[in-house]
């Protein structure tokens, strides 16, 4: 029956999944049998007792025994189903004390995560395989909902309140996080990646902000491209020149351009301006856009900022070159390979 389960349900990624799936499949079979019974009776009777002129039907007004039977049996079934569902849910309801705690702040339309040590990420979380993790969640604007289908968990995120959800991931790899409470234009773009690492990878992630960076083989622009997706810039900024509805300007070709602001001034898009755009996005608003970009202050590590700047530059097609992007990423142990701004776009 595994094929049937996997036809209907997503892959199992947490200790809840098996349990939920059992209840689901149990209900599926129970309701399937009930439905087939109903359908067979309805169609069968319609065929077996099809109209014959003049046939006289029996005058059956009721049958108390039968009626009691079909009241009591469903009742018993329902009681059983309730307790079965309750049983699985009780575990979901109470998080164990030793779980790692990750704070989630949801806002239109971005996930922000904070680890116990203060590390923050956006739209990507790493958790440790087979270690329970608890999310304490709040929202800055409207209702959102933290939904990880593979983990079979979901809970609303409420402004002004803190709700929580927990699970123990059991399958390494990447899982999908998605917002399941309607929150406006970008509701369906409010996605994040949940990466289940083993202990060592997780440590690396916590230290460097990502394993890709670890061997320092990547060019800043490539690194920037990864950040572009991971930090959620991609929800609002395209890189192909198209405008994302309810988002910001495309990054294609902005480097080195004189950008018009909504107060009429013009600003040169250079490293300072891009940096300011990330840290204090409300300081200068590009003409024709709403001031909805959230600040990334504290969300980006220095080398991530630099990667992004390099990436934006790499998208510039200003023939006169514009101002140069930082050529050297300064990182504690300076590796050999990480130098030189490149004009190549990152690989996908």
């Amino acid at each position: 029956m595994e094929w049937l389960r996997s036809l209907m349900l997503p892959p199992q990624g947490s200790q809840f999944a098996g349990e939920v799936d059992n209840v689901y499949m149990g209900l599926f079979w129970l309701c399937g049998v009930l439905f087939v019974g109903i359908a067979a009776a309805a169609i069968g009777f319609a065929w077996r007792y099809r109209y014959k002129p003049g046939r006289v039907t029996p005058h059956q007004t009721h049958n108390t025994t039968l009626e009691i039977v079909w009241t009591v049996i469903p009742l018993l079934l329902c009681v059983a189903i309730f307790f079965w569902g309750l049983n699985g849910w009780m575990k979901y309801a109470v998080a164990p004390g030793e779980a790692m705690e990750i704070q989630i702040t949801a806002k239109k339309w971005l996930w922000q995560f904070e680890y116990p040590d203060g590390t923050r990420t956006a739209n990507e979380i790493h958790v440790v395989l087979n270690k329970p993790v608890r999310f304490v969640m709040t929202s800055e604007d409207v209702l959102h909902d933290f939904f990880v289908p593979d983990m079979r968990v979901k809970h609303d995120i409420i402004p002004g309140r803190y709700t929580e959800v927990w699970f123990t991931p059991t399958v390494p790899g990447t899982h999908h996080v998605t917002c399941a409470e309607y929150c406006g234009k970008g509701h369906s773009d409010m996605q994040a990646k949940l990466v289940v690492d083993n202990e060592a990878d997780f440590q690396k992630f916590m230290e460097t902000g990502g394993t890709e960076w670890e061997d320092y083989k990547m060019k800043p622009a490539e690194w920037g491209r990864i950040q572009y997706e991971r930090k959620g810039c991609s929800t609002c900024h395209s890189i192909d020149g198209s405008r994302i509805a309810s988002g910001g300007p495309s990054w294609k070709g902005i480097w080195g351009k004189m950008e018009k602001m909504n107060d009429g001034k013009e600003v040169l898009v250079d490293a300072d301006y891009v940096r300011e755009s990330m840290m204090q996005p409300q300081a200068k608003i590009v003409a024709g856009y709403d001031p909805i970009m959230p600040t990334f202050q504290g969300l980006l590590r220095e080398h991530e900022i630099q990667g992004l700047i390099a990436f934006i530059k790499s998208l510039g097609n200003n023939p006169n070159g514009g101002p140069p992007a930082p050529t050297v990423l300064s990182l504690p142990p300076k590796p050999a390979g990480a130098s030189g701004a490149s004009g190549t776009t990152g690989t996908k």
Partner: protein
Amino acid sequence: MANTLTSRGKIADHPRPEVNYLNASKGIWSWMTTVDHKRIGVMYLVGVLTAFLMGGIFALFVRLSLLNPKHMLFGKVLMSAETYNRVFTLHGVIMVFLFIIPSIPAALGNFVLPLMLGAKDVAFPRLNLASFYLWVIGAVMAVCGMIFGAIDTGWTFYTPYSTTTSGTVTLMVMAVFILGFSSIFTGINFVATVHKLRAPGMGWFDMPLFVWGIYSTAIIQVLATPVLGITLCLLALERVFSIGIFDPKLGGDPVLFQHFFWFYSHPAVYIMILPGMAIISELIPTFSRKTMFGYRAVAYSSVSLALLSFIVWGHHMFVAGQSQLATVIFSALTFLVAIPSGVKMFNWLGTMYKGNISLETPMLYAISFLLLFGIGGLTGIFLGTLSTDVHLTDTYFVVAHFHYVMMGGTVIAFIGGLHYWWPKMTGRMYNEKFGALGCVLVFIGFNMTFLTQFFLGSKGMPRRYYNYLDQYQPLHAFSTYGSWVIGLGMMITAVNLLASLRKPYDAPDNPWGGTTLEWKTSSPPIEHNFEEQPVLERAPYDYRPEPVAH
């Protein structure tokens, strides 16, 4: 007209009277000022079907947009995310508040209920007309709201999104407020009518089951709708004056709004389904030519569904931040509603057993109802169960569930009832073959559209999503194709019914051999319903050959 009547009913028992309710007085004005429940019913019918058409068109656009993840149609982007959000909201709002809640009670119920009771009219005819005009005002306001900016809150108006988003939320909310009062007035009227205007000799347990269903519905309309009214007032005040009850920024509680909303809106789903069940309880005995099995059980289950519907609303809030104890209690109570629903289901099947079943269009709809409501109701159990609901809530599984109960249940029953009473209302028979074709197409298209959505949902596709992952595309596309089949079936049905209006009166008084009082008057009925006050001699659904002393 090749109408093969398979009924034992007497055809054209007596000459058709010259003057009936349709031609008793002429001119628009005579309709607009009428207090005749039959005319009000017909006006309501026209109104709700227009709303249905409007909501249906929005639905087809929703589906069209979801055809592929890029929303491309002939190389163009069909609609933006904002438009999509408005379209599904308008679809939901129109379908729920303008169409389905008034549909059966106010259109068919208005027409049939007094006839079934052997009454000359409803208890408060002028209130009835007022209810219709409130509906019109509400509808006009809603349409204005759409023209001047629309809303994108979802039909549930959840705060704080609804208090902060732009658009004509206040106008829409006031429109729904007024529609609520329209519904309350209908409810008051029917309760009073059932209590006081039954024909001589008609005890409570001699009433047709349709009346029981509408009566139970009316109880909910009276008791639940005022809370919707105050909820919407609070929402409007919150938007306009920032009174800070639902808005966390001003110290309010957004979850409180959900309690308020669902305290009405869960009972409201029984405002939708009870009349549907009520119609089915008429169709099945009539077309099986057999007495209703377990009449009392069905009558009691209608009332108990109405009462139980008030204590389960929290099942919409399992993951919404209500307390865990409340969640557990609401889940337990939710299962209680499955029992009376099941009782009805089994009694309908019991009625068909050993019947003499003819499959005219209304009966085809009744059988569709049994299958589709069966699926819809049983998937409700998945949602009421705690551990599975956590995964399934706010996904397409829920969307599929409620379309199975609302479209597959109520709308199917409504159209079935429309075909059943069409000869009575208009005096004309429609074409049986096209009627059946429409029904079959809708049935097939419906399952194509919404069965797929169960899979989408359980796979993790959230609802109200404009963009979706590529992996869901095949199922979404298939669902969209299904919606076209529904549209085709509906169109055939509509054309078939409308076409019949061009013929002269040709319907017999009792085309199906029904036993309830509405068949005792002419088709279409005379202005005051009956030539003389009918007196109940036989219980309804008594299909024994010779009348037996009661």
